[in-house]
């Protein structure tokens, strides 16, 4: 379970998260929607400790992410994250991109790591691209590789940070399909997205972020289907 409790986060004097509380249960898919600058991407970076917070707590399976003495490298094995910019390692081929962390962090042998990586790459539809360099892949393929790279660490949670925002429209579908597949397999996911239809379809719950706060959270039929707050209604009008 991921517990987010009264989290405040500032960049200098600019407060981007102003007291967010929410929980994500094992097996749940929670989508976070909202305008840019609403703090939703920042929250994901706080969950795996890439960004410090100023106030509040985030606990992952009971471990306080921002407590002194928390082994973040160890904690991050539990939490996979995929970014808007897919961040392929350009000097490594597809297979090596995926095996790097299992080998160096989990200490697997090259053979074990290759097996796991191949399994996940086949799963995301890149079984025929193992020896290809990332620069030869399309954006959608690179993004699916990034998903496989995160999955190869067998995480308990997957965080998706606007993973389709930088893609050409015709490539969005293949990435969303991969995420649909994961959610169908029972992966716990927090999905920051602008794909409202997708959020409605795959999520157990949807949270609407506005100016660093959660304005509405609940079942997709409620938040997207029948929003109550004027901010949510305005936002949905502007994107749908």
């Amino acid at each position, binding site marked *: 379970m991921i517990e987010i409790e009264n989290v405040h986060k500032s960049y200098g004097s600019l407060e981007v998260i102003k007291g967010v509380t929410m929980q994500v249960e094992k097996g749940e898919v929670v989508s976070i929607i909202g305008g840019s600058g609403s703090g939703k991407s920042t929250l994901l970076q706080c969950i*795996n400790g*890439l960004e410090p917070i100023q106030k509040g707590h985030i606990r992952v399976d009971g471990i306080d992410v921002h407590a002194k003495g928390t082994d973040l*490298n*160890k904690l*991050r*094995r539990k*939490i*996979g*994250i995929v*970014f808007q*910019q897919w*961040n392929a*390692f*350009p*000097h490594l*081929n597809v297979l090596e991109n995926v095996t*790097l*962390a299992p080998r*160096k*962090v989990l200490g697997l042998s090259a053979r074990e790591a290759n097996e796991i990586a191949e399994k996940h790459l086949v799963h995301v539809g890149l079984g025929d691209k193992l020896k290809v*360099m990332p*620069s030869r892949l399309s954006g959608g393929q690179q993004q699916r590789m*990034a998903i496989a*790279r*995160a999955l190869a*660490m067998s995480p308990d949670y997957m965080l998706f940070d606007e993973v389709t925002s930088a893609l050409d429209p015709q490539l969005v579908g293949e990435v969303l399909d991969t995420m649909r597949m994961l959610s169908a397999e029972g992966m716990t996911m927090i999905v920051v997205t602008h794909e409202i239809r997708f959020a409605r379809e795959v999520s157990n719950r949807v949270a609407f972020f506005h100016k660093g706060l959660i304005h509405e959270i609940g079942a997709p039929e409620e938040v997207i289907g029948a929003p109550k707050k004027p901010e949510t209604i305005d936002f949905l009008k502007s994107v749908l």
Partner: protein
Amino acid sequence: MNYTFHWNQALRRLPEMLDGALVTLQVASLAMVIGVAIGVLLAYGRLSSNRVLRTSAAAWVETARNTPALFQIYFFYFGLGSFGLRLDPFMALLAGIAFNNAGYLAETFRGGLQAIPPSQTRAARSLGLSALQTSVHVVLPQMFRIVFYPMTNQMVWSILMSSLGVIVGMTSDLTGVTQELNARTFRTFEFFALAAVLYYAMAKLTILAARLIGWRLFRT
């Protein structure tokens, strides 16, 4: 002009000069390896948030880049000698060039490190790699790719700079051997022209070898 060229006399000594060239390559390569290792540390030092590290790295870089290489070699030979630490000519020359290389390379590396998007580090750290693992497996391989050709220039410079060893009594490298032959025969022009050709060849071969290695190493 009444100087008669005696090329045969010079060419007969070619084997000795080639032996000298080997020593030159040896000093230059060792100085390069040491320079790269220290240069990486200095580049990280200059980008560090720790003030002591940042200042000492900057001091090294500033000194290496803004004082004559000749003085730097002098310092390791005579300078340290006056404190009772005696280096032989080979070691003093090696230390001097390595010191200079490290200073120049640090700046090249710093630029290379800054050219790598911070999101690469983020992605690596998010997979659970430690800061050191991220540097070794993700950042530095990309940096070396960016700075590979500028690094080649430093290697050439390292070869040419090693000729300064003659001023601290180096006799086994190409310049040292040439100087000895010159002192014995007074065929100054012939021997130094031949040495120049050998230096030129070493520089060109270095660049050619780097091209081949780079081509082999950096797949895209």
